[in-house]
């Protein structure tokens, strides 16, 4: 019975080839373009967030009280070793780094600019966020005698500096004394995190201690990467209970704009999705309605010869589903090829690279592919197909077979 239904539905869909193909084309094309846009936007936002998380804040950052407000060495973490050891032992934590960050002046013989010196441990940073992967020129190293520095690409451009040249960094140490060090540039990094690209001078922990006069067990911040699937908010409140003496921030609190951007991307994609699916609904509705109206005599006849109404109903639903499914399959094929292309080759917007940098964005955008794109779209198309037959079916139900056959 159902097999016969399906076969009849299939044959009926192809009775009006052009029309059915148009609907399938419509669903497929709009779905694939929609997926590509969603993927691109998600990829873009994810990339921005990822690069900030990897190069700076992790999911969670720990500071001494008042440090965030004043960004001053007076408010430093004292027992860094103990904090790090205990964090490392927490099951949720994947990786921990400590850093010493100090604001000061970076100068060459010709120019000076505002910069931030960051004392790091290369090995730990690589485990933490793969910092080395952001190097665009030179290498991620501080040289044999720790005199080297790796600096932000944009900072280097501002100061007209290249790998191998020297830069002077001067800042006030924790006692309020002005001190300066000369550093040789070993590498340049570009993370698309503006705080790093525009300002950062990475040096070894030892070097940063030397200029800040901080002790062995002191630092300005500890950042944590959490394991996949850990609830950040939950973990944050757990930490807050366990460490009342620390200020604990999630990345969302540190970078409200990034969080906002993610929210906006989701809202935007949601609206796009809703609009496209509404149109799909209208499209299928139009075709189903007309297809039923023009066969109303035919339906009258089959009802008259005793075919139950529900048989017809099933057949009509199948027809709508075939249209939806056809479009979906086309959309999956075209959409995933577009996404795969955009994931591996990206959308090259180098023409706008300065503008993209203004937003802290890379000039080649890569798409993200999320499995739920395909599942939610499928659900929505099925829903649209089912909804679209409600009205036409109601029309069919009111049909009096005798009238239909005699009329005309």
């Amino acid at each position, binding site marked *: 019975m159902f097999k016969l239904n399906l076969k009849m539905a299939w044959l009926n869909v192809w009775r009006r080839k052009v029309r059915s193909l148009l609907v399938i084309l419509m669903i497929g094309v709009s779905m694939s*373009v929609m997926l590509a846009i969603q993927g691109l936007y998600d990829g873009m936002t994810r990339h921005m967030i990822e690069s900030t998380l990897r190069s700076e804040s992790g999911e969670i950052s720990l500071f001494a009280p008042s440090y965030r407000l004043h960004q001053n060495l007076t408010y430093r973490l004292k027992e860094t070793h103990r904090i790090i050891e205990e964090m490392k032992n927490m099951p949720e934590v994947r990786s921990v780094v400590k850093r010493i960050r100090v604001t000061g002046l970076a100068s060459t013989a010709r*120019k*000076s600019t505002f*910069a931030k010196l960051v004392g790091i441990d290369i090995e730990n940073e690589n485990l933490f966020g793969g910092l080395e992967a952001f190097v665009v020129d030179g290498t991620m190293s501080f040289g044999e005698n720790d005199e080297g520095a790796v600096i932000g690409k944009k900072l280097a451009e501002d100061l007209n500096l290249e790998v191998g040249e020297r830069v002077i960094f001067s800042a006030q140490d924790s006692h309020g004394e002005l001190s300066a060090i000369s550093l040789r540039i070993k590498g340049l990094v570009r993370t698309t995190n503006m705080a790093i690209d525009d300002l950062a001078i990475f040096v070894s922990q030892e070097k940063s201690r030397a200029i800040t006069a901080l002790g062995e067990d002191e630092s300005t911040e500890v950042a944590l990467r959490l394991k996949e699937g850990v609830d950040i908010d939950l973990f944050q409140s757990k930490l807050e209970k366990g460490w009342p003496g620390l200020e604990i921030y999630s990345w969302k609190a540190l970078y409200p704009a990034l969080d906002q951007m993610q929210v906006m991307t989701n809202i935007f994609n949601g609206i796009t999705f809703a609009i496209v699916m509404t149109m799909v609904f209208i499209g299928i509705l139009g075709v189903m309605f007309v297809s039923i109206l023009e066969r109303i005599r035919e339906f009258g006849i089959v009802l008259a010869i005793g075919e139950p109404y529900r048989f017809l109903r099933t057949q009509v639903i199948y027809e709508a589903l075939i249209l939806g499914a056809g479009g979906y399959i086309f959309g999956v094929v075209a959409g995933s090829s577009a996404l795969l292309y955009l994931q591996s080759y990206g959308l090259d917007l180098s023409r706008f690279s*300065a503008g993209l940098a203004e*937003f802290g964005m890379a000039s080649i955008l890569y798409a993200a592919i999320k499995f739920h794109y395909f599942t939610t779209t499928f659900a929505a198309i099925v829903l649209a197909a089912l909804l679209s037959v409600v009205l036409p079916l109601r029309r069919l139900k009111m049909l009096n077979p005798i009238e239909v056959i005699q009329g005309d």
Partner: protein
Amino acid sequence: MFSLALKNLLFYKGRTLTTFLLSLCSTVLFVVYVAFMDGSHESMLKNSLSIYTGAIQVMQEGHHENPSYDTLLEDLPSVMQTLKNIEGIRAYTPRLESFALLSSEEDSVGAMVTGIVPESEALVSRLKEALVKGRYLDSEDSNGLYMGEELAKRLGVDLGDEIALVGSATDYSFAAERFQIIGLFRTGLFEFDASSAFVNKAYFDALMLSETMASSIVVTVDDLEKAETVAGEIAGQMPSRVEVLTWKKLMASMVQAMEVDSLFGYISMGLFFIVVFFVIMIFGFINISGRIRELGLLRALGVHSYEILKLLLLESAILAFASVLAGTLIGAYLAYFYEVNPIIIKGMAETYKAYGIISDEVPTRFDLFTIAWNAMVVLLLNFLAILYPVYYIRQFTPTEAMRHV
């Protein structure tokens, strides 16, 4: 023919209504969307321009790409003299920018310290209006410093406190001086407020050995649209190694950022248009293919197929023009309304301060040209959508069409 087209539209209500509404909504959406996009961009640009950058800057060749003491304007008086006689200029003022380390007892921060001429600066930028505490500079000031509020916060200083400046003079000799904070300002441009301080240029010149020099001369014009023309005029009268840049160049990365933003906007609208196009086409197709027999009858009766084509196009045209016109009127009204009464998103400026957004207001831009081309796009879309259905119907001969079921 026209009345037959109209009657057909009234008769086939489903298609008419769907197409009309879709086309109307698309027009409204498109016009309003673009108006918001352009409006927010324009207000961002205008804000930044009027806060500090100005419409035109005059500087030594190469200074914009590579600002350093090597590329200062050296013959300031004669350049200033030339500017006096050019039409379309509203005001102008010289600035001498120098990067220096400011140290308080608590902290040291690198900052851009700029020597300005207080009176003419007030005509060119919003520095004077941005005052939040203390007072603005005047031409008698000596070591008074007018400082961004965020910068003062970073230094942990307040009005009346002393600050040490360490930097280099224009001949690269060591320059150091103590300044007293006489005023704090807040423009809203976070980065600017966190890294800028201003001094009376007359006094600053003595310290920096820059009496007849300037980094740039900032010019404002009567009409921003004519900035290019005025810039050309200025350039014509300047010595050869002097460059005249308009805001388009000065704000290149911001302009480009907006282009990117617009690009994304248009991509999204493009998706929307693809879907609308298909729906209009499908409804047009359903309508026309349902009328094959009727159109075949017309042809059998002796109406030429060319006339049928005209009839079908006329139907679409009536639909398209009516819906786009209505949509444009509604869209234009909204664009106008929200230009006068901008939407306010509380907290937006705070969230996006790092991106140079200084206002919670999101105004639209009411621009007839933009609205006109937006409307044209939707019109075009309507016509493209009918092409295939019309082509489809033309395949039938009258006798085939009459027999069509």
